């Protein structure tokens, strides 16, 4: 009774012993948690490891499956692409994991992306004359799919193409992803678009084509400005002109990608 009331002198001692025992209990709980989490994580890792090995074929051949797998890896801070040459993005806690994964997946998944990257480079180079080195991710995907290279086409997703382009970065090849309007495009010639050029390309995406007077009317540009931008774009092979219309129309070369021939 008296102890519970805790009004005597001994109450002070009780209280301090109580708090130390709380603290020690808390510490032991924390460490228990930590070990159980660590076990869980390592179990999960080994399961993921097994999973990756077991389903390596599916990961390579099924784009949807691959995208989901990549998302899963991302969620726990594992970058399937972080190979020996690229330091794992997941710094700190994930450091050990990064290299581990490079080892686990290196043989299969990494190779897949490097192989795809080679295809992407081929496709970009092959179509450079038509599109000035600016190729939509979507179109690139289609071209890779219908590719006629050794081993035929590869079935890939947008996500795969983006990863493949990223994997080219260490090479300093100048391949990069740029956003033009709502579209992601692969730039294979290191050149910046200025704001006006981007605006025009965006407008072409929406409208299909553009004319000088459309630019003047809708954007309030004067003729010289519209004319200069279009001349620049023409000079860089980024648009094609149709001179058989009442006013010269400028079209995006995206339509030119057709492997029917």
């Amino acid at each position, binding site marked *: 009774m008296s102890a519970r009331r805790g009004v005597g002198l001994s109450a002070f001692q009780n209280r301090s012993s109580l708090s130390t025992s709380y603290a020690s209990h808390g510490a032991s709980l924390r460490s228990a948690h930590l070990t159980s989490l660590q076990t869980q994580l390592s179990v999960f890792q080994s399961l993921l490891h097994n999973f990756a090995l077991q389903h390596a074929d599916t990961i390579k051949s099924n784009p949807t499956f691959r995208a989901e797998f990549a998302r899963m890896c991302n969620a726990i801070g594992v970058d399937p692409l972080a190979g020996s040459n690229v330091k794992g993005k997941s710094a700190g806690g994930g450091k050990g994991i990064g290299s581990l994964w490079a080892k686990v997946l290196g043989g299969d998944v990494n190779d897949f992306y490097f192989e795809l990257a080679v295809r992407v480079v081929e496709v970009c180079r092959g179509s450079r004359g*038509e599109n000035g080195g600016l190729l939509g991710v979507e179109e690139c995907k289609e071209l890779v799919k219908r590719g006629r290279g050794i081993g035929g086409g590869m079935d890939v997703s947008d996500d795969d193409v983006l990863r493949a382009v990223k994997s080219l970065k260490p090479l300093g090849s100048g391949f990069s992803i740029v956003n033009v309007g709502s579209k992601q495009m692969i730039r294979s010639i290191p050149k910046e678009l200025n704001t006006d050029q981007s605006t025009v390309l965006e407008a072409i995406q929406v409208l299909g*084509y553009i004319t000088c007077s459309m630019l003047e009317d809708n954007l309030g540009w004067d003729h010289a400005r519209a004319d200069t931008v279009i001349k620049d774009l023409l000079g860089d092979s980024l648009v094609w002109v*149709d001179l058989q219309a009442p006013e010269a129309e400028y079209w995006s070369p995206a339509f030119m990608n057709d492997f029917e021939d």
Partner: protein
Amino acid sequence: MSQPSPSPSSTPFKFPTYHASYPPFFTLQPNTSTLTAQYRKWSRLIQRYCRHHRLYKLSLTSTIDSPLFKNTELKKRLSLQDARSVLEWMSRDEGGRRIEWVDQKGRVVDGRPREDTHDTCWVFWKRPEEWGDVIAAWVEETGQKGVVLTFYELVNGEGTRGEEFHGMDQELFRRALSTLVKRGKAQVFGGEGAEGTKFF
């Protein structure tokens, strides 16, 4: 590898999307690198078109209004002058020498393209030496090396029905064989009308 091509116009030719729905394809592009890409596309298209319709020669004036150069739906066309530039590009090394200008008498003409002299051309969707290879391969496959075969037999005979070279242009056939003769793979003898050949 090559299945027998369909007989003339048994199936409609399927134009690629850039021909069917991309107006700028019918305007030769001012930018040189774009233009080269465009020439290449046109060249492949013309070859595929001729192959589909089993055309060995093409006359500009009579083809210019055909669906090859004119898209009535888009209301676009490749002008006579531009079509001539395309063909001219095809006749050069960079175009793979896929066409060859000839005059009315079928003689090869050289020099700068002119309206009056450059109207008709061979379209080599297979070059004579490529035809030669096809024919030689057939002879080899059917075990007829060393056998005397008449020209008629090879081009029109029952035995070659379904082969790609069946019913091909006589003159081109002759040229194909002469490439084989030059390479020492065949021998040609006999007179006009009754020529025969033997493969080694």
